[in-house]
């Protein structure tokens, strides 16, 4: 009985009139948690009842505390008939379960009814008394913090980044149960809302357990999604990155609140054998034996679980038994290579195991060509396995064997983070993605969601092998998504293959930061661009050049990534949003035939999308994409592809070539003229864009004018042919700066369309910029004026002109018009930038296309924006370093001692002298250099561990001192809490943003995750203003409910806000509509920087000081 939940119902206001006779309401409240219900008295005849109830106390397990939502129902008392429900409030009490977050939930909550929307408000106070439970076999994971933010939260420091955690929970969808035929829509909606709330609680708890097991104390980049599979059920799944976080300014919080085993944690690294080849199993054994059974069916053998608990990605982990993960890929056995992630072995492995067809989905350039068919087969076979549940037999056994080792997931070296502490990211390989088409079947036993698990495991395995093919041992910026239409489901996963600094993964960031910074001093801001793969065994054809920044390492000509722009990257000019949009018609079909048709279309779609992206990137005169997100949506009779990314010009990468147009029939004079006309237009656009985005690469600026496009005879037709020879490419004289042009061959009307669509993209009006990453490269003087918004559009296609071209045009217009509308609406904020622009496409019906956009507009200071790029770079570097300082608790002691050896010692110069195509010797030298340096790194690293041990000890002794040191932050915190968020207005302002930060402000506290799911239904669509009126009101209500929850937690903003789902269905004939919305984010307290300065400049008063240390816990 480890928790007591206390609830007090204070008052209501603005209640609806429930009694027509008196125009009043006799309201009372039911408070329900688990199976216990309390009621308040009936407050007669009032629309503003004052219940002022006693404290209702629930004595519950912490497992329930995590799973169950608090359910508050407001009813109208009726003496003669049944009481009428006014509405409900669901409160997730999870934020009260960690010591650092909120201590009380208190405030006005909108009373929500799924049929009528918000009907008044209720004032509730909720508290939890949690008793520490030291039982290590418990099922709860109280105390693990969750963050949606995909970077290390601002007031924390990452001690260890453990790695990938995932889980999924399955249930029947109440909407499809037999009982749904006899119950009211309201009852059905409420059952669904409650179930999903319950499932996400359970999911979070299970993920928390995994984190505790990994000895972490937090999940960062937590992304939870629902798959509404219709008849076959409801899947709630989540992925995240387990971390051990350390709150800055409160050294006491080193350990997670109620995680007893974690006490040993700190010592483990010191005891472990530093020799990478002999894995020590010593200190970590006690933990390995803790096999929590997540579902009864899974029983782990000791061996398998012990290999599971090994944290992958570190130089010390032993390779996984070769037997694991193989059977998934009978068709491609070469994928089953061991998963040792040493850089050394990686290189070796990639040499030995790389067969050409691995390159398929993988490439920074994403020039998909030869091997696509392989993926296709894989997808097709995957589709077959989807229905394998029915086949039973050996395959099922195989699956069970697969799911048996739930912890095996940790062998996925994936990180959902998109921004990293400085020095974490060593090299970036490129985007890796995998999709598979599955046929949904009924989930027979919700306790064994093994098919779904297996599906994802399969895809993740694929991603991993792709990353490996790129010479990378990890995948960052990783995300997963699904698209479901009837019984077909496309599962997608994508990320960015990367080489990480291994020290971060096991060890504190402190040392590694410093070390890394020193290491990377030479190639400042370009290190991550350097290719991680072996240039002689390139997984795909690519042009390599020497880095334009350091001139020492090789870089690709174009870089695609799913992550945010690293803070220290050197960027020239500004960035811009680049989208590729595509529709493909598909015949209506059933089941297998449908799935096959979709699998056949997928590769073509991917290919087209990448071609478009590449063309548009070149048209903008840029050479890298960040935040790439490709969404493939499946509908009844079409497939849609939408890729969004932020294009930038990385100083380290070569100048992008132009786009060359080639006609097929050169004899025809008029045609030729037409082609040259088009060519001119394209060249003009490129030039204009370069001006617009201020892309003036400093040294080679004269070459822009000099040779934008190579001579016609030099054209090599890259596109739509695989005839490119890499020799030719590498021979290009780099100093001359001439790039191979991208050639568009307009041999048919299709291609003409493509060219036209390239040119129809209108740049945003002056004063506007847009990007889908956190911040706009090249702008850093944000003001605090922000406006988050959601915009939804649905168009109906006329069924007459359903050709691919018409469809493409419609879709393109839809997106372009939507953007234009946004620019118009937000014109008062100019100069401003739309950040984190997130487009989602869905196909709710045959002829309907729905596009949902969520973004934030931030105004910036124009005067400062005109700074030269140099100062911008300096600024960003400064910022990086201040960020770095923030992360450091014991900065100075370490600085002098920890002078690590160079990671890539001077031997690199050999590389430079060697010509790029001189062959094997150079490459071998490169690898051997790397190898030799490894030992150095290890030894220096051990020194650092020792150092850290000292400092930690010192730190714990000096606790009181550090508290004083950190007082300015605490003061800010304190001050903020004592003063209401907004004194003047009656309702405090709550900011919402999809970004992880608030411009001009400092986040002082994270209050917990907000994860809400709402259903709204109407049977009077016309009366509510039609579909637009209905959805407009609903979205506004969702915002209101999010804000109310944040305010009740004591917060004044939501960061990393995301609308994960907006499923809209209408039936105008019946005057009905239904909508489901799922949103999440992190509730935070922020203080404006200006305020903060004032506070910290004041001499701390005695009053303040005394309340600081205890302030976090008691108030």
């Amino acid at each position, binding site marked *: 009985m480890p928790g007591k939940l206390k609830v007090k119902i204070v008052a209501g*206001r603005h209640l609806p009139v429930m009694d027509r006779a008196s125009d009043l309401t006799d309201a009372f409240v039911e408070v329900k948690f688990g199976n216990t219900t309390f009621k308040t008295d009936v407050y007669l005849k009032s629309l503003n009842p004052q219940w002022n109830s006693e404290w209702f106390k629930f004595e519950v397990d912490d497992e329930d505390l995590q799973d169950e939502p608090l359910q508050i129902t407001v009813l109208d008392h009726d003496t003669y008939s049944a009481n009428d429900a006014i509405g409900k409030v669901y409160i997730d009490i999870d934020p009260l379960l960690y010591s650092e977050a909120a201590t009380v939930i208190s405030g006005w909550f909108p009373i929500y009814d799924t049929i009528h929307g918000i009907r008044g408000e209720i004032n509730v106070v909720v508290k939890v008394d949690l008793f520490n439970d030291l039982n290590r076999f418990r099922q709860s994971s109280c105390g693990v913090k969750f963050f949606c933010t995909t970077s290390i939260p601002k007031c924390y420091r990452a001690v260890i980044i453990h790695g990938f955690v995932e889980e999924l929970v399955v249930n029947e969808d109440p909407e499809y149960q037999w009982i749904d035929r006899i119950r009211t829509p309201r009852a059905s909606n409420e059952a669904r809302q409650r179930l999903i709330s319950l499932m996400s609680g359970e999911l979070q708890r299970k993920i928390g357990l995994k984190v505790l097991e990994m000895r972490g104390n937090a999940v960062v980049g937590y992304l939870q999604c629902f798959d509404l599979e219709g008849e076959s059920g409801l899947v709630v799944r989540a992925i995240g990155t387990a971390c051990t976080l350390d709150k800055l300014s409160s050294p006491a919080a080193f350990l997670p609140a109620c995680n007893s085993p974690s006490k040993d944690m700190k010592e483990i690294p010191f005891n472990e054998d530093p020799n990478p080849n002999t894995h020590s199993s010593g200190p970590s054994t006690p933990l390995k034996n803790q096999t929590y059974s997540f579902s009864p069916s899974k029983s782990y053998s000791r061996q398998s679980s012990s290999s599971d608990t090994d944290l992958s990605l570190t130089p010390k982990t032993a390779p996984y038994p070769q037997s694991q993960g193989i059977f998934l890929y009978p068709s491609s056995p070469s994928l089953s290579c061991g998963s040792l992630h040493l850089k050394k072995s990686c290189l070796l492995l990639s040499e030995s195991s790389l067969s050409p067809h691995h390159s398929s989905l993988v490439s920074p350039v994403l020039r998909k060509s030869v091997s696509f068919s392989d993926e296709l087969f894989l997808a097709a076979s995957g589709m077959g396995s989807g229905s394998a549940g029915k086949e039973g037999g050996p395959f099922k056994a195989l699956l069970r064997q697969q799911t048996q080792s739930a912890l095996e997931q940790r062998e996925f070296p994936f990180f959902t983070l998109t921004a990293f502490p400085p020095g974490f990211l060593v090299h970036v390989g490129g985007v890796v993605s995998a999709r598979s088409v599955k046929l949904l079947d009924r989930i027979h036993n919700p306790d064994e969601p093994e098919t779904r698990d297996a599906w994802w495991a399969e895809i993740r395995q694929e991603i991993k092998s792709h990353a490996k093919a790129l010479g990378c041992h990890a995948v960052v910026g990783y995300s997963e998504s699904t698209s479901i239409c009837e019984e077909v489901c496309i599962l997608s996963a994508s990320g960015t293959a990367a080489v990480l600094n291994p020290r971060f993964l096991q060890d504190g960031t402190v040392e590694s930061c410093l070390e890394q910074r020193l290491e990377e001093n030479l190639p400042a801001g370009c290190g991550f661009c350097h290719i991680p793969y072996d240039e002689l065994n390139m997984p795909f054809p690519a042009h390599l050049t020497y880095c334009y920044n350091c001139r020492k390492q090789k870089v690709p000509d174009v870089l695609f990534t799913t992550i945010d722009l690293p803070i220290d990257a050197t960027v020239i000019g500004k960035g811009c949003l680049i989208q590729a949009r595509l529709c493909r018609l598909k015949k209506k079909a059933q089941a297998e035939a449908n799935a096959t048709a979709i699998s056949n279309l997928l590769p073509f779609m991917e290919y087209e999308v990448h071609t478009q992206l590449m063309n548009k990137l070149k048209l903008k005169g840029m050479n890298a994409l960040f935040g790439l997100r490709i969404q493939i949506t499946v509908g009844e009779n079409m497939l849609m592809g939408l890729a969004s990314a932020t294009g930038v010009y990385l100083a380290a990468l070569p100048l992008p070539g132009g786009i060359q147009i080639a006609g097929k029939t050169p004899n025809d004079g008029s045609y030729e003229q037409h082609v040259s006309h088009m060519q001119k237009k394209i060249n003009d656009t490129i030039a204009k864009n370069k001006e617009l985005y201020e892309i003036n690469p400093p040294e080679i600026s004269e070459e822009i004018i000099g040779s934008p496009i190579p001579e016609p005879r030099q054209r090599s037709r890259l596109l739509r042919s695989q005839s490119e020879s890499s020799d030719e490419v590498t021979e290009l004289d780099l100093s001359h700066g001439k790039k191979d042009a991208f050639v568009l061959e307009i041999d048919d009307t299709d291609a003409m369309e493509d060219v036209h669509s390239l040119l129809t993209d209108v740049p945003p009006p002056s004063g506007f910029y847009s990007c889908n990453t956190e911040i706009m490269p090249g702008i850093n003087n944000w003001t605090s004026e922000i406006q988050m918004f959601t915009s939804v*559009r*649905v168009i109906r296609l006329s069924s007459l002109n359903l050709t691919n071209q018409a469809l493409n045009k419609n879709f393109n217009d839809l997106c372009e018009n939507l953007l234009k509308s946004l620019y118009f609406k937000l014109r008062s904020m100019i100069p401003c930038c739309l950040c984190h622009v997130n487009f989602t496409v869905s196909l709710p019906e045959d002829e309907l296309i729905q596009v949902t956009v969520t973004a934030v507009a931030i105004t910036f200071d124009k005067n400062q924006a005109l700074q030269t790029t140099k100062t911008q770079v300096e600024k960003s570097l400064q910022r990086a370093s201040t960020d770095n300082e923030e992360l450091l608790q014991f900065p100075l002691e370490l600085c002098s001692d920890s002078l690590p050896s160079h990671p890539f010692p001077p031997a690199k110069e050999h590389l430079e002298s060697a010509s790029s195509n001189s062959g094997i010797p150079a490459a071998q030298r490169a690898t051997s250099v790397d190898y030799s340096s490894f030992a150095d790194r290890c030894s220096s690293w051990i020194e650092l561990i020792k150092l850290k041990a000292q400092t930690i000890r010192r730190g714990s002794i000096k606790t009181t001192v550090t508290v004083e040191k950190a007082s300015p932050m605490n003061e800010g915190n304190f001050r903020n809490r004592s003063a209401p968020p907004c004194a003047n207005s009656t309702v405090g302002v709550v900011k919402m943003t999809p970004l992880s930060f608030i411009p001009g402000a400092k986040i002082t506290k994270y209050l917990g995750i907000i994860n809400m799911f709402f259903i709204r239904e109407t049977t009077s669509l016309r009366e509510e203003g039609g579909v637009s009126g209905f959805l407009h009101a609903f979205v*506004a209500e969702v915002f209101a409910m999010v804000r109310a929850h944040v305010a009740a937690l004591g917060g004044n903003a939501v960061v990393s806000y995301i609308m994960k789902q907006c499923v809209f269905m209408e039936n105008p004939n019946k005057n009905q509509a239904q909508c489901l919305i799922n949103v999440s984010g992190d509730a935070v307290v922020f203080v404006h920087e200006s305020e903060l300065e004032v506070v910290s400049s004041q001499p701390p008063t005695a009053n303040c000081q005394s309340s600081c240390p205890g302030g976090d816990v008691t108030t």
Partner: protein
Amino acid sequence: MTNELDIFVGNTTLIDEDVYRLWLDGYSVNDAVALRVRSGILEQTGATAAVLQSDTMDHYRTFHMLERLLHAPPKLLHQLIFQIPPSRQALLIERYYAFDEAFVREVLGKKLSKGTKKDLDDISTKTGITLKSCRRQFDNFKRVFKVVEEMRGSLVDNIQQHFLLSDRLARDYAAIVFFANNRFETGKKKLQYLSFGDFAFCAELMIQNWTLGAVDSQVDDMDVDLDKEFLQDLKELKVLVADKDLLDLHKSLVCTALRGKLGVFSEMEANFKNLSRGLVNVAAKLTHNKDVRDLFVDLVEKFVEPCRSDHWPLNDVRLFLNQYSASVHSLDGFRHQALWDRYMGTLRGCLLRLYHD
């Protein structure tokens, strides 16, 4: 390709002042778009008509949803659905409750009933204000009237508290409520030259001096109803014109004091008895509800028009009225000095305001 659904929702509710004005003025979405196009916004922003249409629709929807809250402005402050900065909230309320001079002149003093509402069609045609806007303004009047009608305390304060209006607008509404409650006739042709401001000025003086609230601040309807007792007492003033000696004495006192100071002295001297009779008779008649309604008609007929036809300058009117009311204090036989001051003090202010072309 048609937009089935098209919405934009900001965390901070976007309010476009220009569109709000068009909405308040009762224009349909299409008319509003046309008006916006004419304002040259497309050229300024480079937007297309479709964008404008979508934007206008969005704003209209928002306003439509806000309208329910605007009916009870304190709700707008406490509601959680729309996050609107306080300054914007104030703007929304103030503009929503603002009214057109032309419209208010049409309904001022009329019963705010369904019957009047039916006449809004005619008012709309007459004034050129859209019917929708007329309805909003009428409903605003009625809503404010209903809320404060039977409320204790200062009328202006009550309005301000319940509708969060600016001081100025609250005073105007006080006048509208006062006129509607007492049904003063303002629509006669004779009164057409008067502006709403003139009436509002008079209303304020009357509320201050002639209502129940002027003597007792703890009564219901204190600022809305005239003090019945006071009106009854006004009959006592009749002696000023009925008693010939008193009238002559009064005249001589006024004439002595004003001789040489008035440009229209001779006209005044000639008209004194008529004017005095008029003013006192107006007072004596106020016991009847019907005559109360005709107060302004009577004042214009009995005082403003005669003076105007003799071309009295405003300053002479002021001097006359001052002297006329002050001289009564010197009439030894007259015992109702306080009553006279309460009546004449207000009336003097009103007449001076009403006296213009």
